[in-house]
């Protein structure tokens, strides 16, 4: 793909309102959507607001909706689209608009504060911490989360229901809770919270979150469903709970 002109529709505006604006810029080989947004900034609209940092899919800053699909702009190549196709870039819908492609994601940072901290058990008698790789594999999957909040954006429980944000932590935080719950060293108990305040019950396992996760974390299968099972054991099945307590986590 040599340099060719691409047609972009980018949402411009702020909390008061806005609209899509069309831009035409040259795109070279291998370019990603974020490159094109930067080209628009440099040549057409120096004040076009966008968040980004690593440009390599590692920081989770550049989330947006590209042709209606929640994606990282820095990992979406332009040659994914048909030549001549107009590409639409919009901010994430679930969060309040600040400006252009930038949204107010503070909901997530507030939610994070409410998750009870990691509380490790005592060390081994020799003063070390021993864990086998197999036991931490599943937690390491959750630790891959780059906090792009695309899963939060796509989850229908909060996407069209601002009022649910009070009761629902969202898939990113189910991943976080699962990571803590399954951490071999952790001793804190968060199941009550998971059930009551994080609103795990609202999730009806649509798997939309898993589909958009750029880190390919199996949010629903590996985090949410096991958490739901634990909650059931804890509150409705005293025997299973007892067995789990005896057998470690």
């Amino acid at each position, binding site marked *: 793909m040599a340099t060719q002109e691409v047609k972009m529709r980018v949402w411009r505006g702020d909390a008061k309102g806005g609209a899509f604006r069309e831009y035409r810029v040259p795109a070279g*080989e291998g*370019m990603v959507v974020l490159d094109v947004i930067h080209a628009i900034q440099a040549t057409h609209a120096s004040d076009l607001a966008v968040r980004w940092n690593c*440009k390599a899919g590692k920081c989770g800053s550049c989330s947006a909706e590209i042709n209606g699909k929640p994606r990282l702009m820095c990992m979406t190549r332009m040659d994914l689209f048909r030549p001549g196709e107009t590409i639409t870039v919009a901010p994430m819908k679930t969060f309040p608009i600040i400006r252009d492609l930038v949204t107010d994601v503070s909901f997530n940072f507030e939610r994070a504060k409410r998750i009870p901290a990691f509380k490790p058990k005592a060390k081994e008698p020799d003063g070390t911490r021993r864990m086998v790789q197999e036991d931490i594999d599943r937690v390491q999957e959750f*630790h891959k989360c780059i906090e792009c909040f695309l899963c939060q954006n796509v989850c229908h429980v909060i996407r069209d229901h601002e009022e649910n944000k009070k009761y629902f932590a969202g898939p990113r935080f189910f991943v976080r809770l699962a990571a803590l719950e399954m951490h071999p060293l952790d001793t804190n108990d968060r199941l009550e919270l998971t059930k009551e305040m994080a609103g795990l019950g609202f999730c009806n396992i649509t798997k939309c979150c898993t589909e958009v996760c750029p880190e390919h974390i199996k949010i629903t299968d590996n985090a949410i469903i096991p958490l739901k099972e634990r909650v059931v054991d804890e509150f409705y099945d005293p025997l299973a709970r007892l067995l789990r307590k005896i057998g470690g986590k």
Partner: protein
Amino acid sequence: MAAENQYETHEYDVVVIGAGGAGLRAAIEASAQGVKTALVCKSLLGKAHTVMAEGGIAAALGNVYPEDNWKVHFRDTMRGGKLLNNWRMAQIHAQEAPARVLELEEWGALFDRTKNGLILQRDFGGHRYARLAHVGDRTGLEMIRTLQNHAVHQGIDVYMECNVQRLLKDGERICGAFGYWRESGKFILFKCKAIVLATGGGGKAWKITSNSWEYTGDGITVALDAGADLIDVEMVQFHPTGMVWPPSVRGILVTEGVRGDGGTLKNSEGKRFMFNYIPEFFRAETAETEQEADAWYEDKKNRRTPDLLPRDEVARAINAEVKAGRGTPHGGVFLDIASRRPADYIKRRLPSMYHQFKELANVDITTEPMEVGPTCHYFMGGVRVDADTTATTVPGLFAAGEVAAGLHGANRLGGNSLSDLVVFGRRAGLYAAEYAKNFTGSLTVNMDEVEATAQQLVAPFDGKGGENPYAIHADLQDCMQTQVGIIRTEKELKQALDKLATFKQRLTQVSVEGNRQYNPGWHLALDLYSMLEVSEAVTLAAIERKESRGGHTRDDYPQTDPKFAKVNVVVRKRQGELRISQEPLPEMPEELRKLVEEQK
């Protein structure tokens, strides 16, 4: 006119600027010492450079090689830094890194494990033993998230997307900081007793770089403006392996872990060329044949492969191969792990490299070689600090992490940055808190000065000159890339100085459109101020050091010069101008010197 309540104002004992590994660790420590602490960062929390770190964190835990200990780590660090390091920092770093890594584990980090269930360690350039604790190739993510969660649970006040532009002083002492909220463009004033700078480096002034938009050298600039000393700023690390193709990803980092895990560099003739570039300084400890090099991966009693020489050596070698016409189609060299390790091993050890090449370059690293070339990566130089306390030369101002200088000397070893962040981040928090507690006097912010700064910061909106900040930035990047790059000459450095002067002139003519709300054009116009100041400091220091050493290579002075082995190049700002001088390095105690001089 200068009414105090004109600006949003907050009072703290300690304000930490920067929320990467260094800033987070500093804030955690300061707050644990019981002083009122704020953490300020210009991106969202958790997005700092630290999140991108891949290969690992260096600490002589001795989990894989029990022979390893702080003395070996100290020696490797000093030798990697071509002995320009501050020996005391290198000593503290090597001694304290293991405790800081274990502390991360206490806070929930999950490093990859050895068969015995301990923290696994991997090989990296310049480290004699496998020393880097890691999580696949996303160690920085694990580290920043662990620190971030810990800090959040401590209840530290965090100011995100808040950009500090100036430090404020009462007489000689720090008394506050002034900046703006990116979201609203409104100003914010911090009054405080002590400040910890943890703002990272300035690699965004180069065109081919692994650094993000944040690396505009703000911390170095505000420190200079406040009267602090800089040292070693001519020492810019070009990481040997950045992506080179396609053009839009040029510069994105390819972790040294690829070579640590068995990958080798080859030229277009298929030759492992690093054997031709073994410098005298490292000859005794480097393998001379391919068999010997490959045997080293299995047993560290063999000498190490030259693929893992320190970064400055490898970057220069790649540069030379490409110049000699033995480069790849896109002007790099090949990095091949596909023919050397099984596909599932590569995917398990280097998942994000696999992903990055697959998605961004259509290259499957388990079946094809990568194309790589040098990319601007790290500032060894920066703000001069006291080794034990991280205090700068300005009372009340402390600095840690990439913004501070001394630990890495002329060249940083891979993995030594993440450990630097937690070792000296903790110390910065500790000593800043102590300073704040002991300070009993009163401090007054000069509101006229604040008002004047505020006027300057909004000036680009009234600019009639029509200069586009993006255009100035692109020209600056071209200039630094070609004239203050890996290989330097006096002539080109002086040309660069002339150009920098014209860019400064152009910056006074800059105009930005739109309003103050989340306006990247305006932000860039302000960032250019620090990028230009840092670029000038680097260029002046590069002219001053008339020798080649570590990250600084002079075509017109290709040898290391014993005279320059004993001095730091110091930059300070006086009467609005940058002044350069040479000052003696601290003298290393005899027993440590012996350690360093041991051959193998």
